């Protein structure tokens, strides 16, 4: 390590350039730290599993034309029979919604019927005895619904059922310690005196239909109720045998229309594989991560290029001084380490300011947007990365400086 004193003295003669490089490093650190944090947040969000066997599942949005109530229910049952009978289909079920769909029903859950505030928020999935198998959920404890427990009803006639199957997250939230099986819960739509529902089964994992931030505190709280919706609308969840999803996607629309043509399955997004459902739900998260990634890469490249540019200029400007130093006995290594140390000093100043800026920017974003504070490891990693980047960027010009011959000292220009 070269002596710091003469380097500082030299830097004082290049105040503008020094400040500019330090400022650039500081701003880059502030932005890169926050961008990386955004990437991490978004990526971890879109990696969350739903609990379904996603690779084999197909979702169909159906709406009967001009029928309501029991007529719709009869047609829906006909569809389910047809779908379950198709070659290449493991099972099919019908529901008001499914994970990542984007629209559904949510209620508060209590274990005391008189409690003022619910213990947790949950989504409600209308289900039958096929639902667990059709979604490929893992039944962790208890049992599935029995066929005789299933009731058909209008969606807005919802009342608490006698039996429910809940997700493990919700079971643990309401009954901590894993003793939820067989216990009652109360589903309330704000009305007092609701009836208890017994937990007959617990599924390992089942996500809510929403992917937005507002649902993030009850992401895996789901209650499956033994109801099927009569009426005009609903979604089919079809589980294909491994490898036959692609064929099913092509034929299922025609099969459904052949069964009954007085229906609307939207052209756009009416039939989606679960991969498409997932892609659609997390599109803006993936996009944001991508955009931040591109900005980070370009930003680091431009900052590195800027350091190369300015240092090259300094080396060019000081060729004569370097020649004098070399003539007076400085080794190539001395010259190299002079420029590396100089850059390290500027970089240290830059990252010191940058770390403050990064934290400030994060705090400001927390206050403006629905974001959380980042762990300081981001700043630490960013600091190390930028110092390393600075050293790497300065290496080429510094090596050029080290190659300056002592003879330069004697040349006039």
């Amino acid at each position, binding site marked *: 390590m070269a002596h710091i004193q003469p380097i500082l003295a030299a830097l004082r003669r290049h105040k*503008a350039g020094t400040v*500019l*490089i330090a400022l*650039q490093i500081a701003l880059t650190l502030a*932005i890169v730290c926050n961008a990386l944090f955004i990437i991490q947040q978004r990526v971890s969000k879109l990696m969350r599993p739903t609990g379904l066997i996603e690779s084999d599942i197909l979702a169909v949005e159906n709406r009967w034309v001009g029928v309501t109530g029991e007529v719709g229910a009869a047609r829906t049952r006909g569809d389910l029979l047809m779908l379950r009978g198709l070659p290449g289909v493991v099972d099919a079920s019908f529901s008001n919604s499914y994970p990542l769909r984007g629209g559904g029903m949510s209620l508060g859950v209590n274990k005391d019927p008189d409690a003022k505030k619910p213990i947790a928020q949950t989504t409600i999935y209308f289900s039958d005895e096929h639902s667990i198998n059709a979604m490929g959920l893992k039944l962790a404890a208890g049992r599935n619904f029995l066929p005789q427990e299933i009731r058909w009803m209008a969606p807005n006639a919802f009342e608490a059922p006698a039996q429910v199957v809940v997700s493990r997250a919700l079971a643990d939230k309401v009954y901590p310690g894993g003793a939820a099986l067989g216990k009652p819960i109360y589903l309330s739509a704000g009305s007092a005196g609701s009836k208890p529902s017994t937990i007959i089964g617990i599924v390992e994992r089942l996500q809510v239909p929403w992917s937005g931030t507002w649902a993030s505190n009850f992401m895996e709280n789901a209650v499956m109720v033994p109801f099927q919706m009569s009426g005009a609308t609903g979604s089919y969840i079809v589980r294909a045998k491994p490898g036959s999803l692609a064929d099913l996607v092509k034929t299922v629309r025609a099969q459904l229309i052949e069964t009954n043509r007085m229906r609307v399955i939207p052209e756009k997004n009416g039939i989606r594989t679960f991969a498409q459902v997932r892609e659609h739900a997390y599109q*803006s998260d993936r996009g*944001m991560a991508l955009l931040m990634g591109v900005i980070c890469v370009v930003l680091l490249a*431009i900052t590195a290029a800027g350091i190369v540019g*300015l240092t090259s200029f300094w080396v060019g400007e000081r060729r004569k001084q370097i020649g004098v130093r070399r003539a007076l006995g400085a080794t190539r290594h001395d010259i190299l380490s002079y420029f590396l140390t100089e850059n390290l000093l500027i970089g240290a100043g830059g990252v010191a300011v940058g770390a403050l800026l990064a934290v400030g920017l994060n705090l400001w974003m927390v206050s403006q947007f629905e974001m959380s504070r980042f762990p300081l490891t981001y700043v630490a990693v960013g600091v190390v990365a930028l110092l390393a980047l600075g050293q790497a960027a300065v290496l080429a010009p510094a090596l050029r400086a080290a190659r300056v011959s002592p003879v330069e000292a004697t040349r006039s220009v």
Partner: protein
Amino acid sequence: MFGYYFGLGLRSLRRNPALTALMVMAIGFGVAASMTTYSIFRATSNNPIPQKSDELYAVQVANWKPADLSKGEPPDALSYTDAVALMRAHKARRQTALYPVGPSVIPEDASRLPIRESTYAWYGDAFAMFDIPFRYGGAWTAAQDEAHAPVAVLGKSLNDKLFNGANSVGREINLDGHNYRVTGVIDDWNPQPVFFDATNTGGFGEPVGLFIPFTRAVEQQMETIGNENCNADPGQGFDGLLRSECVWIGYWAELPTIAEATSYRQFLHGYAAEQQRAGRFTWAPNVRLRNVTDWLDFQKVVPPESKISLLVSLGFLLICLVNTVGLLLAKFMRRAPEIGVRRALGASRGAIYTQFLIEAGAVGLAGGLLGLVLTGFGVLGIGLVFAPDIARLATLDVSLVALTLLVAILATVLAAFYPTWRAAQVQPAWQLKSN
């Protein structure tokens, strides 16, 4: 003189191609990132109906107890009870209650499959309120609203699908097995953000294809396909919903003058007070009247992604500019001897300023052109970042092209001020002596 300096600038830029390329790229990338994200921000924060945005007001009435409200704000929508009471009072110049419905259109030709179009149930006044242009015919009348008449107004694309774009006024369409007579066909109309129903659309979406009277939709027991929020069990069936305090109806009033808005606000307050006296509300009147821009703000239609990416991009541009200041400084100071000679031969400081600012301007122009190309790619690729409904709103139009070039040149010239000032400070005597 401009031409001469411009030529000098170009020659100087050619002398260090790597440095010049670096500056041009920094500016190009910085400007392109900012402009691409700005194009999305501009589209999402757009005023969809500028000529009337402060004459149209969204109405909110708190029909829930304060504990059920979020941050003390009344619900986003009205209950059926309140919507009908306000329609009946008829206190605004024009007003409409509205909600999205999902009927299917059954084509006459039995070989064709039913069609589903985005459909709204509202009052005939809404067409005039929202300045909706008609291609054929017009809105249905207030008398038809009153009579729950089976009438409809078609969107352009549905009219194309059903009647091949011909004038269909007076003809009938079949909705869920019932005939509706067409009173009008509208022209292209798709305000973005969708201010009249930001609550259910999230602000962006496809054009509406079909309109039917609110009164008819309720009579047919058509349920909303939008949000229906309840603070208590609504009871059984559609009639239960109509009697409940569930909120699912949007409400707009047209109040062209401040005086009318003030008196409408007083009317709303009075209405809530009356409900309180009648014992339906057990809390003080809590009502809101928000114009279009306030309503869009309140509904937070600008996605946070759009704001964050614009901010990060502006930070990126700032860093690119700091970078450019450094590189220009290096470039200009390297030419100190040349400046010394020029000053010694009689060039004023002003002349040095002009020369170097023009040179910086040339860099800015080149950066701007690169930025323009990259912005073009950025706008094309914006679909990778934002949902299709939002991404398609970003366009590279004349104003964005002009803004891109302007920002690039302005930013570069701004960045050049300090290096130029330094260049102009060069002491000719010192330079000549040291050489």
